[in-house]
């Protein structure tokens, strides 16, 4: 079984999205666990800049050869940037889920929306029964 990686400087949602918070900008992607479960990602559908995202609600889709899953917003805010590289090369989500495989950046409008996100250790524990 692949050794899955959960960087300690990130926060994680129960729906497997990760958040890197810098000031009030949250960079969002999907975790190593998610990309491993999905297998080869072939397509990702992302919102446009300016779209309002609400915590817990879908903001896009990630499609692999075997499944198409919703991407759920781990925070509430407005989309400021979208990763075009990932649209053209969706395999980046598999090979580099935390760096080049980032999906969107959101200007957080409700800082409380991050309160229930897990840290790296809690997320690793959360995943144990799911492996």
């Amino acid at each position, binding site marked *: 079984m692949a050794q899955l990686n959960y960087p300690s400087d990130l926060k994680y949602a129960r729906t497997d999205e990760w958040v890197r918070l810098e000031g009030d900008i949250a960079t969002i992607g999907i975790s190593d666990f998610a990309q491993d479960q999905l297998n080869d990602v072939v*397509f990702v*559908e992302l919102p446009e800049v300016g779209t309002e995202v609400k915590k817990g609600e879908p903001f896009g889709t990630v*499609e*692999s*050869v*075997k*499944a*198409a899953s*919703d991407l759920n917003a781990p925070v509430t805010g407005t989309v400021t940037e979208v990763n075009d590289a990932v649209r053209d090369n969706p395999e980046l989500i598999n090979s580099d889920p935390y760096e080049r495989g980032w999906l969107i950046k959101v200007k957080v409008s409700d800082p409380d929306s991050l309160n229930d996100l897990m840290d790296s250790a809690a997320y690793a524990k959360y995943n144990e029964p799911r492996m």
Partner: protein
Amino acid sequence: MTYIPHTDVERQQMLAAIGVTTIEDLFEAVPSTHRFPKLDLPAGVSEMEIAAEMLALSEANDHAQDFAIFRGAGAYHHFIPSALNHILLRGEFYTAYTPYQPEVSQGTLQATFEYQSMMCALTGMDAANASHYDGGTSLAEAVTVALEVSRHKRKKIVLSHAIHPQYRAVVRTYHQGNGVEITGDEGMASLAELTDLIDDNTALVAVAYPNFFGQIEDFSELVEKAHAAGALVAFVINPIALGLLKTPGSLGADIVVGEAQPLGIPLGFGGPYLGFFGVRKEYVRRIAGRIVGETTDKNGKRAYVMTLRPREQDIRREKATSNICTNQGLMALAAAIYLSLMGKHGLRKVAELCYHKAHYAADRIDALEGFDVDRSKPFFHEFVVKCPLPVAKINRALIDKGIIGGYDLSQDYPELENHMLVCVTEMNSKEEIDALVEALSEVNVQ
């Protein structure tokens, strides 16, 4: 003759394996009063007797071959080359049910891929699915795609009244209860009036090409306004007409749907028919239905597979592009065979014959006292005739002469009392057309 392969010995073995004495014991859960109801069926008859009974029943119907047919309205009488059935009715094609495992279905998958490719070439679309039930269902799916593309933020669907009335009814049935406003076809709006309805709440505008009345319209302004407003445009087409007309793709269509029955499928008392669905590349992930793709296997050899599967409901569940995950495989194959047999030139020839014969018929009917052909717009192989009597009455007189007259438009359009929709195809000889004209002239005298 028994059709069940198990022997009594095998039955006893199976019952013993599960710890039950008789087969009747397996139905203990059903209340005794309902367990083995009396069915009161007549006694079984021999194959010879049943064949005679079925033959007698079938002779109660008239056959298409017994009449000169001048009716279309969504179901068209065209010639089916005999080579088509020789290929279509081969057991490997005819008996297979959803043959999509690439390991054992390369033949069917390739044929479906060819069907998809040919329909794309015919319509100017980038991708087509493996078909839907019929033209009406395809249009309903086009609405679904448009709503999806707008992420359900747009709720208005604008339909031309000149789309087949039954297709519009299917769209309404399909989308009832999902908060969609379907409008534009309440009366007999002009293209300009239809175009005026387009706003930034419009997800889709749909028009027919040729339309239900056989007419060919210029949709350029409508398409321009729709795209400017961010709405998608769907064309409902007749594939034979596309042997002659410009492709919907070249005219700005985003989605092309229609009834492909004219491509080698018999009238068949209304079915099975063939719903065609094609889109521009950017929408291919949103469409319903099966899609066959071309790829290479692990040895680098070309192979065909079902592709873009995660859209479908067995994977995506309530977020699937549709609840439909089947197609009209055999009919799509028939269409593919027909198009291959006809080729580009053959299809054009069929279209030309339809066009010219229809125009000859229109000229002769128009010259009749009391009959007025609508020539306000160019038409393909159907045209509207204003008659001196109710269409139903005229058709009763025509049937006695071995002629199936045109469609009674008053059934669907109250404004079109006494208006008949006449269709002429390559199947109508000059003699048949002249006989129709003669019969119509006699009907008026009554």
